[in-house]
């Protein structure tokens, strides 16, 4: 128990990932949904870093860098879409985001 193995990190990561999934599936505020996605990405990152440590190999960390870059791109575009949507519909409720064009 006192020795922390990659298994511990995997469990932490899985739990965080599930929290993210719950957030995505349950919450209706799209900003929160975005944040839940960020949580999921972080969960993946934890896993990658943990295994990079375990395998004494930096490739996992390299992937984390890419994940962070993708997350930044996702946040920028996602929030841009959100703003564009908001100024037309004045809502951030994903249930009302059911049209492809407006």
């Amino acid at each position, binding site marked *: 128990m006192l020795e922390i193995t990659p298994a511990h990190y995997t469990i932490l990561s899985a739990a965080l990932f599930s929290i993210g999934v719950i957030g995505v599936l349950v919450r209706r505020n799209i900003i929160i949904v975005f944040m839940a996605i960020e949580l999921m990405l972080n969960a993946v990152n934890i896993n990658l870093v943990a295994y990079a440590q375990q395998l004494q190999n930096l490739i996992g960390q390299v992937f984390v860098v890419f994940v962070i870059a993708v997350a930044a791109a996702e946040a920028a575009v996602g929030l841009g879409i959100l703003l564009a949507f*908001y*100024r*037309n519909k*004045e809502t951030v409720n994903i249930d009302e985001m059911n049209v492809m*064009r*407006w």
Partner: protein
Amino acid sequence: MATQSAPIFDTDELVINMGPQHPSTHGVLRLVLKLDGERVVDCDTVMGYVHRGIEKLSENRDWTQIILLTDRMDYVAAATNNLGYCETVEKLLEVEVPRRARYIRTILAELQRIGSHCLWLGTHAMDIGAMTVLLYAFRERELVLDLFEEYCGARLTYNSMRIGGLPLDIPSGWDRKVREFCDVMEGKLPEYEELLTNNRIWLERTRGVGVISARDAIGLGLCGPPLRGSGVYRDVRKDEPYAAYDEFDFEIPLGTRGDTYDRYLIRLEEFRQSIRIIRQALDGLPEGPIMGKVPRLLKPKAGETYHAIESPKGELGYFIVSDGRATNPYRFRVRPPSFCNLQGLKPLIVGHLVADVVCLIGTIDIVLGEVDR
């Protein structure tokens, strides 16, 4: 998307109250600003927080008591208020004011202009963030106040003139001190210029901000430096000379672009011209009485008149109706330059940023005591 091409992102219009408690509304002016982001899209000016009914009060006071009330309007330029009022009543009474009194009045009015412009410069620069100028300008204003204190004993509300002349002759040695002050002031002006005139930030903040064309300025009834900043040659001292201004040689600085920077330059130049006038007046100060022949009981013949002078803020006019029977004016009306200039604020600020609002309030140089009366 094409069907709703109206301004889309107007959901964030923010209405903020600037004032009456705000550090840079120069008193208790209240602006209700409608903002789109930081840009002002609409503005409503609310005033009257220091409305003391000076006009109404004056209609129930006798002619001499009113001088004291005029001090309280533009309290940073009390002497010019006194001057305008006394001249108007003198015009109604058709009293001749002795030449010495007119000279001293001119000196007082120009000293007052320097004092008022010092206050304007300090607060205007402070609004834009240059706080050292404030302290420098107040340092010089203090000298003006000292001179007034020596002349009439008061530092803010002077009550320094009487109908028909002056209550006091100048104290001995006062003219020398005024000359010294002129030298000091002339030496200090380059300090202000050094801090502001060629300062890049100052230029960026003031140039092209609050531009108003000559035509609009005339139409809006702007007066004083805001009008001259747009290049309109209009100065009551030249157009309708009063006191002793027709005997002096001075120039009226004019702007070309009508922006905040031009108005700043004009007021700086007015410092110099005021110093020039004061020096001429001191050089040619005639001997003689300081009070004209005024009846003991002031009762002007029935009639009405409007008389304007150039206060530091602009055209300060008094419209007085006498019914020929009472010892008080039947109707006493002040044409406050700050009030009329403040009317030009809305066209100036709409479309500018919040930061420019304070800059523009500063540039039109209002005193709320005068706006509200």
